[in-house]
């Protein structure tokens, strides 16, 4: 009987700590709630937050950098420094051929995702609530743009689309087909009896590779959504458990997680471009990143 009690104690403790959070109703709905409808299409609180972040980003960069001059003003120097430090890390991965075309995409992805992730930490986002007209329950007026699967899927879809365009333009269809299906064995090293069956093997591997490539947008979007939505949910649940001070360490963890996830998203998109476009030897570290 005592052995059974010991086995029971830990799960009961875990279940008990969930009860206060569930009872308070704290915790974020997995999908963003619509605030109003425009011509039949819903406008959710996540969408409004992404618009605010996008407009804010454009305005701030324009105001700080102004008209770019040859001798930079202080604001322009700051913005240029930020751009350079990001490009230092990404340029060896993407390679010299595609860097000119992919620079706007990667910069925009990094800053946009970074600000969107951090927008959940602004006081007021996620806390000012109103009664939803549809269900009658409380919902937030503003919510981080990436805490909704639609936002992250849009980002992944855009990067897939633009990445494919860049690869097709700078490497060509032949290079893509060779990279996926081509026989990579060296004719001089491998005896002929082994070289020709390798065509079949590499073709089958290529089919698996196509599936893995098609999975990439899903993986990108789920990673970003899970991290940001999980962080939002965590802070709300911690608030539900103990209001005074418990969410504070998780707030700082959200700062770190937001930065890391923006960085990882940008890095992964650049790796997907660089795998095909970069053949100077630096791109082969990215082969281990094939998921």
């Amino acid at each position, binding site marked *: 009987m005592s052995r059974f009690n010991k086995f*029971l104690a830990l*799960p009961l403790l875990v279940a008990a700590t969930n009860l206060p959070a569930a009872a308070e109703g704290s915790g974020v709905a997995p999908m963003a709630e619509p605030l109003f409808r425009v011509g039949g299409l819903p406008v959710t609180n996540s969408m409004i937050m992404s618009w605010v972040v996008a407009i804010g980003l454009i305005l701030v960069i324009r105001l700080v950098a102004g008209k770019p001059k040859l001798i930079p003003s202080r604001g322009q120097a700051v913005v240029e420094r930020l751009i350079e430090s990001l490009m230092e890390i990404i340029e060896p991965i993407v390679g010299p051929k595609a860097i000119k075309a992919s620079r706007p995409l990667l910069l925009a992805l990094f800053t946009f995702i970074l600000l969107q992730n951090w927008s959940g930490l602004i006081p007021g986002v996620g806390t000012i609530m109103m009664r939803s007209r549809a269900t009658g329950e409380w919902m937030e007026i503003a919510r981080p743009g990436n805490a909704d699967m639609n936002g992250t899927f849009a980002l992944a879809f855009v990067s897939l689309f633009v990445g494919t365009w860049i690869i097709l333009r700078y490497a060509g269809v032949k290079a893509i087909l060779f990279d996926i299906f081509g026989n990579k064995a060296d004719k001089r090293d491998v005896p002929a009896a082994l070289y020709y069956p390798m065509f079949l093997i590499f073709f089958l591997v290529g089919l698996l590779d196509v599936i893995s490539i098609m999975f990439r947008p899903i993986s990108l979007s*789920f*990673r970003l959504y*899970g*991290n940001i939505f*999980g962080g939002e949910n965590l802070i709300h649940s911690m608030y539900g458990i103990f209001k005074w001070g418990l969410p504070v360490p998780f707030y700082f963890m959200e700062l770190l997680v937001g930065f890391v996830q923006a960085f*990882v998203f940008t890095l992964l998109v650049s790796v997907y471009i660089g795998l095909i476009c970069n053949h100077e030897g630096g791109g082969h570290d990215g082969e281990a*990143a094939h998921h």
Partner: protein
Amino acid sequence: MIHTIAEITGNLKALQGGLGCLGAAFGVGFVGTRAAEAVGRNPGAFGKILVIGILGMAFAEAIAFYALFLGNY
């Protein structure tokens, strides 16, 4: 036996999420171990190892989100 555990905790979905997160935790830990070891062997390569370490951890952590959100609701 799985059903017994699920009945005690009351939630099969929580078990699915928990097992996924367990795997992810192990994965991230392995990446961190090897990264720390690599920096110990070659402290000058800290920047490159940091980038690869973060990339590896992001991949390992994503599996937890598949288990949490892609399973049957």
